[in-house]
């Protein structure tokens, strides 16, 4: 089989699984999850084979696997749609296939497969006491469709197919956030997620239309590897005079990323998205869909940076991207410090880490951004699944002890390391990777590379912001680990927690291998002692995705020391602050930070701000202004006025003209005749004698007239 044919086939098994489950297999939970996992295994196998072929191919960047078909006739031309495996999509395919597979398997245990159905459970609400999820099959249908969307996005060779995958994932995200739609909070969160990301999507759609109009294509290779096209885009002015066409298109596409990757100011949906089941949070809201936003800007890097040369001043578009990314990284990290929900901390941490990648793209650090994208997908999926395992354990505890505590609040946990050893150790690996624990973890290498790049290109503002954010990251991560796993149990529920089943712990172990090992593929050659022992494979490989291989930056000790310092310092501080939180105790930061802590806890009041200044006015515009005032008031008012006026004219015509004049005249004739007839009726007696008399009289008169008066 041709490798291109195989690439076309990779996304299809999960799609088939979706249709099979929805159209009938849903009746059996076992068949449903077997179909879903089996199809994901097929896709995974195909992906691994393609990945292997990709890394063994000669100069994949110049000769990618590519295949297109004509999809849409557009006048004289046609829109071609196809699949592409170049280094960037190969590496993305790799981590997507692994994380998706891990999460599919994890979901079996998470949704209590094998346990009996609890009669009290209802479709649309989470199981109350460890019974199997009532909508078990539906969950697998949705995540299969999701996997199809993500694989499509990765394998696409053009921006339109990417957008199609992007939106299909958006739908699945919506459906899965609201999986337990019976909860009003979940119902609101699903709408919020869809609408917030849609803000970005409509801008992105406009960007696609613009780019398509300007170049006549949306294919990556035809635009991004086409020097004259890029030059043309960078040198022509756009509809906004201050920006080049490339700059404006880039900005429009980037707004799509802001929505999808939950960057400030469109970040508000992601924390609420934690209403969904945990595997969903891990897959969609950590490893794959939110990464797709970053994938977009990494993919279109040559377009976003058109007109910029390495080391030169940033273009306006790049400046915006760098600012949004760096700001989000810090902003979200500060919020994460004050959250108590174990999943919400991770949600804000995801926003923050995605900010790192966005900032990296903004300063032109292509390889670093791609690298962090890969490592983050693994360790963040690991952390989410770990938190799901923790919550599961806690829920068992809550159920066993009948203690009414929130199983997701970290202040109700403590000491879980002994109860849940596998979860603990894997979570620790994930947490350390997130913090950038030196040398051992993947997160260190990728984060260090972003900092080093910012330092080397003298992007001081970005460098300092990201360094502070890294300190906070290590701090809140250690806060989370300490509160959850270390110390003593703070509730009875925590004391009764127990380790999760193997279907849940196995994915944790697999992902933690990657969370450690994947970083070693990208050790810079100039790194002291170990640099060059393993070749910097990642840089060489991924660099092929660009028309020109990016240069490696010279080693500098300052960013390295900063990176190590903030990671270790943050971890230490976190441990020191939280290691002795007693049962029922409050956050040790609450007193010293005072009102600031409250602001952080309330996420800077962004939700309230948006509700008051955007959502409510918009609804007023819809309900009152547009509908009641314009349509009902003005337009219908005018129509009714026209109708009433016509009626008045009509009744005037009738009452003032028709009745008195027209009718009057007609009536005069009719009535006159009638009246005359009435008068003359008296002579119609019916007696022959009288008629004879009248006849004689009249004859007499006529004869007299003829004889007497006739001349």
């Amino acid at each position: 089989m041709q490798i291109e044919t195989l690439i076309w086939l990779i996304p299809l098994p999960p799609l088939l699984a979706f249709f099979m489950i929805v159209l009938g297999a849903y009746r059996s939970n076992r068949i449903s999850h077997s179909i879903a996992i089996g199809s994901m295994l097929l896709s995974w196998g195909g992906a691994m084979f393609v990945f292997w072929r990709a890394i063994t191919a000669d100069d994949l960047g110049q000769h990618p696997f590519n295949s297109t078909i004509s999809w849409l006739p557009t006048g004289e031309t046609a829109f071609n749609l196809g699949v592409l495996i170049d280094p960037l999509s190969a590496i993305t395919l790799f981590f997507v296939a692994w994380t998706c597979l891990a999460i599919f398997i994890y979901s079996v245990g998470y949704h209590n497969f094998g346990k009996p159905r609890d009669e009290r459970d209802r479709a649309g609400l989470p199981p109350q006491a460890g019974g199997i999820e009532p909508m078990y099959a539906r969950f697998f249908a949705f995540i299969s469709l999701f996997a199809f969307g993500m694989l499509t996005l990765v394998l696409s060779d053009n921006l339109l197919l990417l957008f199609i995958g992007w939106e299909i994932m958006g739908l699945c995200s919506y459906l899965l956030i609201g999986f337990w739609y019976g909860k009003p909070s979940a119902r609101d969160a699903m709408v919020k997620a869809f609408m917030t990301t849609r803000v970005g999507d409509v801008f992105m759609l406009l960007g696609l239309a613009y780019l398509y109009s300007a170049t006549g294509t949306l294919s990556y290779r035809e635009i991004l590897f086409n020097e004259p096209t890029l030059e043309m885009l960078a040198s022509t002015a756009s509809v906004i005079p201050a920006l080049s066409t490339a700059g404006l298109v880039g900005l429009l596409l980037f707004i799509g990323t802001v929505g999808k990757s939950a960057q400030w100011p469109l970040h508000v949906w992601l924390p609420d998205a934690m209403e969904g089941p945990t595997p969903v949070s891990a897959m969609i809201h950590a490893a794959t869909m939110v990464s797709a936003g970053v994938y977009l800007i990494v993919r279109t890097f040559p377009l976003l940076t058109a007109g910029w040369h390495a080391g030169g001043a940033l273009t306006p578009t790049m400046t915006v991207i760098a600012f949004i990314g760096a700001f989000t990284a810090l902003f979200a990290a500060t919020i994460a410090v004050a959250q108590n929900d174990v999943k919400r901390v991770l949600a804000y941490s995801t926003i923050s880490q995605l900010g790192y990648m966005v900032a990296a793209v903004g300063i032109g650090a292509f390889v670093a951004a791609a690298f962090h994208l890969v490592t983050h997908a693994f360790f963040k999926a690991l952390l989410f699944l770990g938190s799901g395992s923790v919550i599961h354990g806690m829920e068992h505890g809550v159920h066993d002890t009948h203690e009414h505590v929130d199983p997701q609040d970290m202040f109700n946990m403590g000491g879980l390391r002994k109860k849940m050893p596998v979860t603990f150790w894997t979570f620790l690996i994930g947490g350390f990777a997130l913090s950038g624990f030196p040398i051992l973890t993947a997160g260190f290498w990728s984060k260090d590379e972003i900092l080093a790049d910012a330092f080397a290109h003298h992007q001081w503002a970005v460098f300092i912001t990201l360094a502070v954010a890294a300190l906070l990251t290590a701090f809140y991560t250690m806060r989370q680990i300490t509160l959850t796993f270390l110390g003593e149990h703070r509730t009875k529920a925590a004391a009764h927690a127990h380790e999760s089943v193997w279907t849940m712990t196995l994915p944790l172990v697999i992902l933690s291998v990657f969370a450690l090992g994947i970083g070693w593929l990208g050790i810079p050659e100039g790194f002291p002692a170990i640099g060059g022992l393993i070749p910097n494979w990642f840089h060489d490989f991924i660099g092929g995705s660009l028309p020109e291989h990016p240069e490696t930056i010279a080693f500098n000790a300052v960013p390295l020391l900063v990176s190590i310092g903030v990671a270790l310092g943050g971890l230490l501080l976190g441990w020191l602050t939280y290691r002795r939180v007693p049962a029922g105790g409050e956050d040790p930061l609450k007193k010293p930070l005072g009102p600031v802590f409250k602001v952080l806890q309330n996420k800077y009041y962004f939700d309230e701000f948006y509700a008051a200044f955007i959502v409510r006015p918009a609804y007023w515009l819809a309900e009152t202004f547009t509908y009641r005032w314009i349509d009902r008031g003005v337009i219908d008012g005018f129509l009714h006025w026209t109708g009433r006026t016509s009626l008045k004219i009509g009744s005037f015509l009738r009452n003032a003209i028709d009745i008195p004049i027209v009718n009057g005249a007609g009536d005069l004739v009719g009535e006159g005749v009638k009246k005359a007839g009435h008068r003359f009726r008296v002579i119609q007696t019916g007696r022959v004698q009288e008629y004879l008399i009248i006849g004689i009289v009249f004859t007499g008169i006529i004869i007299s007239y003829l004889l007497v008066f006739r001349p």
Partner: protein
Amino acid sequence: MAFLQEHILSLILFSPVAGALLVFLVPGDRVRSIRWVAFLASLVPLGLSLWLWFAFDPGMQGYQFVEQAIWYEAINSSYHLGVDGISVPMVLLTTLLTPLAILISWSVEQNVRTYMMLFLMLATGMLGVFMSLDLLLFFVFWEVGLIPMYFLINQWGSENREYASFKFLIYTMAGSLGLLLAIQLIGVAAGTFDLITITQQWSTLSQPLTMLGLPITLSIATVKKIAFWAFVVAFAIKVPVWPFHTWLPDAHTEAPTAGSMILAGVLLKLGAYGFLRLILPLYPVEAKFYAGVLALLATLAIVLGAFAAWGQDDFKRLVAYSSVNHMGFVVLGIAAAAFAQATPLVADGVIAVNGAVLQMFNHGLSAAGMFLLVGVVYDRAHTRDLNKLGGLFPLAPMYGGILIFTAMASLGLPGLNGFVSEFLVVRGAWPVFSFYTALSMLGLLITGAYILKGIAKVLHGPLNEEWVGHEMEINRREILAMAPLMVLMLFIGVWPKWILSVINETVLRLFG
């Protein structure tokens, strides 16, 4: 076979009338038989137009399956039919939606025989408009499509049907009057009503027009101008273009379910079809001159239509307003093409019209589907108030799935049909009317808001105890009516080429 080949259009056109006569022969109290006869009769034109679809050759120049017969010889009006790549999809849409609408009318229980006959005659009226190549014939069918709909709303509608049907009738009649005037003027000026002849002679007409022997003479330029505006008003009301749209929410909301399906699915397309068939080819200069205004109105329809839909608490009215929003994209595409004619942007104009025609077809599918689904829930709950519904998903999981699918098609989710046409319109309109296109994105955003509002308020939220124990699930007959729509929504979304290649060839010849 040769007979079929030569008279396929007449057969499609009059088989619904034949069906209506057949229905008339069934005794009025045998409701079951009436329904089945009507349904089976409506399958005949569907089968024939499927044959037409496959026999149609997209690459061929001009109109196909042309039929011409003497009609009003004295005034040079003939029975002249023919189809091209714009009308064939519309014919298919009409003949597809008619049986589905009849299938969903099982819940109608009063005067079933009259109802079914009106429905079948309605189909003939609409098909006639899409097939006519003679202006007088065009007008006759235009009116034939109007009257049955009036009675359907007036007799079988819900509470406020008197007001709605009257508004609908008066409003469209106002447009029709202009249409009749325009057609008369053109007919007298050109000496014929034949569209093909008129199109050929159009630019060379010069003889001033004397009216009825009166001492008034109109120059050809004036005639054309009067006819232009009369056409514009008639078609703008039918589409409807903002601000002529307020008849639509009332008529759609009050009409019986099947009536709303046809109204939104096909009748609105008559207006857009008029723009494409008459205004753009006959008035390229005027159309180009006023294209900016048209684009503005289209954008207002997109944005304000979406906002108004979002502000509704009546599920059906919400869906009705979504038509204003979606048809706005059709008009935007048409406006872009009108402006792009004979400029370097002509290729963009072709893309925009491709999008507009496909959007007409797509909206026919999704709007009909949405109205059907609103009808399903209304049949069971006897309310359309969104605040009284909610939490129905556990009670009607299959209905929920179908509703979400159809709503997503309506929302323009990529992978389903609506996206392809909206993308083409946006792509085509962007270089022509950048500002309006950008503004219409606001409408696209709010489209999400109202669709999700509908889903959330019908399906999601805590289980609605009021309906527990009621049979809320969609039944087999209704699923059967939805299935073809859903298959087409998915198929066009995944593989739009099969229909777009037909549209594209004609559009390229007309506007390229």
